[in-house]
């Protein structure tokens, strides 16, 4: 008996089955059965991209010059626009030639970044729970994945330090992300400085995912990791247009910071792709350089939804705090359901309340005991979701 030669690679086999599949299936079944399910599961922005950005895309798409192969690392004007934006927003200066690389959204950037900097057997430390791509980009690249239970503030760094002190060879990379998906934890510059000191001490690189920098509330402003003095010596940041400008489907993101790391990604990508469709890049320039009031409007919309959801949940006996950032609400499963597990609890909300949420387990084992709401339905429907949850609690007993 000869083993088939046509098999998936070991890299593929390391990827676990999709955790959200079960909830998604039940959601689809409910919809086919004609039920109106309110979908607060996936973090897929529902608001339209601001009109002036869409208009620029349409306009530039008619120009035949934009129909040719673009540039893998992003056209120079786009990289310059990012550099200017970082300077305006954070006071961080970036060389558009060597310190900025455009990516097809953060996800692509993350996955290729790991391939660009990891050798088989290199260890990466990742908080847990976290955005699943933080974990699986490492898996795809063949790295060792050590996760640290994600706690708020300095406790996280203390836990991290204890782990890395006892570990060798030392991990090569630390992945962090603030404001954090799914836990909504935010950071101040002092925390970044603490993390930077830790990473420098152990000679580790840092990758900071800043996808939610502009989705913040109540006057809180998220810092960039690169605001830490000297951070460019060992850190890169992934930034994405998806949430800031509701451009999720456009697939525009950036990797910025340390020129060696950014350069490694550029080199790898030059073999992989010809870059984002040029009209999308041109529209992205307009987004970054144009009026920014749309950004506040988008964040304000999430803030109103957040208030409705959190206050509603509290009213129906589910104590939850208002997050300072991200488009999510991370909620500890209330009594008497706490022991049910996030997967079964999510299914219960779906079956008895017609509300879809993401089970915490889908973000890593330390996410168990929680669910994540994405604020991607309108105010009216979020109110309806709260009613559905109340119904589920009454039915679920």
């Amino acid at each position, binding site marked *: *008996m000869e*083993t*088939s030669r046509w*098999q998936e690679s*070991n890299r593929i*086999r*390391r990827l676990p089955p999709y955790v959200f599949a079960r909830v998604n299936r039940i959601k689809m079944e409910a919809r086919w059965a004609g039920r109106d399910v309110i979908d607060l599961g996936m973090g897929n922005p529902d608001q339209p991209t601001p009109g002036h950005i869409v208009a620029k895309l349409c306009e530039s798409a008619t120009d035949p010059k934009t129909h040719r192969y673009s540039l893998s690392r992003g056209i120079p004007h786009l990289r310059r626009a990012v550099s200017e934006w970082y300077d305006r927003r954070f006071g961080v200066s970036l060389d558009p030639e060597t310190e900025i690389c455009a990516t097809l959204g953060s996800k692509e950037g993350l996955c290729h970044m790991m391939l660009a900097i990891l050798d*088989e*057997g290199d*260890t990466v*430390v990742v908080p847990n729970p976290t955005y699943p791509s933080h974990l699986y980009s490492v898996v795809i690249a*063949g790295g*060792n*994945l*050590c*996760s*640290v239970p994600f706690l708020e503030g300095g406790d996280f760094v203390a*836990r991290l330090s*204890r*782990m*890395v*002190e*006892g*570990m*060798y*060879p030392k991990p090569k990379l630390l992945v962090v992300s603030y404001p954090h998906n799914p836990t909504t934890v935010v950071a101040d510059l002092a925390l970044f400085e603490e993390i930077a000191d830790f990473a420098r001490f152990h000679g580790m690189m840092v990758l900071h995912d800043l996808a939610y920098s502009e989705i913040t509330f109540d006057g809180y402003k998220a810092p960039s990791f690169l605001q830490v003095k000297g951070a460019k010596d060992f850190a890169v940041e992934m930034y994405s247009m998806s949430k800031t400008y509701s451009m999720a489907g456009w697939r525009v993101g950036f990797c910025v910071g340390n020129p060696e790391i950014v350069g490694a990604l550029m080199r790898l990508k030059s073999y992989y792709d010809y870059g984002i469709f040029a009209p999308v890049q041109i529209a992205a320039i307009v987004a970054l350089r144009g009026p920014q009031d749309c950004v506040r409007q988008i964040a304000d919309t999430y803030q109103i939804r957040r208030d409705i959801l959190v206050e509603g949940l509290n009213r129906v006996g589910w104590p939850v705090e208002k997050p300072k950032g991200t488009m999510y609400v991370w909620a500890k499963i209330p009594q008497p359901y706490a022991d049910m597990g996030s997967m079964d609890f999510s299914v219960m909300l779906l079956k008895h309340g017609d509300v879809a949420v993401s089970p915490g387990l889908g973000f890593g084992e330390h996410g168990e005991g929680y669910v994540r709401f994405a604020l991607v339905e309108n105010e009216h429907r979020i109110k309806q979701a709260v009613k559905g949850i109340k119904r589920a609690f009454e039915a679920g007993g």
Partner: protein
Amino acid sequence: MRISRRIKAMAPSQTVAITDKAKKLRASGVDVVALSLGEPDFDTPQHIKDAAVAAIEAGCGHYTPNAGLPELRQAICDKLRRDNGLEYKPENVIVSSGAKQSLYNALQALLDPGDEVVIPAPYWVTYPELVKLSGGVPVEVLAEDDAGFKMTPQQLDAACTDKTAAVIINSPSNPTGAVYTADELTALGEVCLRRGLTVIADEIYEKIIYDEAHASVAALLPKLKPQVVTVNGISKAYAMTGWRLGYVAGHSDLIKAMSKLQGQITFHPAAVTQHATLAALNGPEDDVVAMREEFRARRDYVVGRLSAMPGFSCLMPGGAFYAFPRISGVFGRKTGAGRALDGSPAVCEAILDEAHVALVPGSAFGAPDYLRLSYAAARQRLETALDRIENWLATLS
């Protein structure tokens, strides 16, 4: 009854001793997590069991040739070519009842009284005992965590005398999980070539390797190949510990000598096991890969947790299913129950009695500053065990 001096001189296996103690505790109603045994917690793949049943039904219950079924020895040659780049003929192969017997037969065939065998420490508990039983003298060479638990060519050279006959190289290693690279093996092999040593390459953990590709020393140095005895088996790769089959590939003179011995003591391994092994070696490797990937996830988890424990530090192992943390940081301290932690046996005993986790002291492997934790256990059990150890550490004064 008067017992021979030969047997009285043998050290009882410390791994078995601790497992027995754990069993006793368990019998008295205590929930003990046993992480002391080197046995995969998976079951033999179905297609292998089916092949064994079919062989029994077909009437395989008769003697086979002493060195093993010709088709099995051919399958082993095919495997060695496919996986290891080694060309052998069936007359270069003999199967025995477990890799332990393969090793013992080889040592019996190779050693004269007083011959020295270099054994890098930490070593598998069985090596020195088998060398002594065969009339040889074990010479331990300690390579600690700072050397990645790997013996250097200089260390090997310095340990050799005019009586040195052989060296045992176990990669991936039990108990440390260390994996020698092809370059490291080549460098060791060159010393062996220069000194005319026989190399006993124990490759039983070959399939449980995470980062590097496995390298076989016999394939690296063609001139050395006639002096290399490659030992392997099915226990770890196919979760077939209880089936008892190991094999040796090497010079035909050695195989003849081993056959002579085996013909007098045990004869061939059970026929049904040989048929099952044939199915294992010729069949698909999906289960092997799935098992390895599960081990990898557990390894990352276990090493992360152990590293974070005060007084412990842990090397990221490249293979096998053991973590081998340094625990000397807690020596000299006292447990909550007043027990003095004066070495790894005391630490393991205290963890067993007070935290109910069975581990093996490093002293059993010739490395007293460490302990061995086998992560061939379900994730939940590992979590429970590590929580208990962590809580126990918090009671130390």
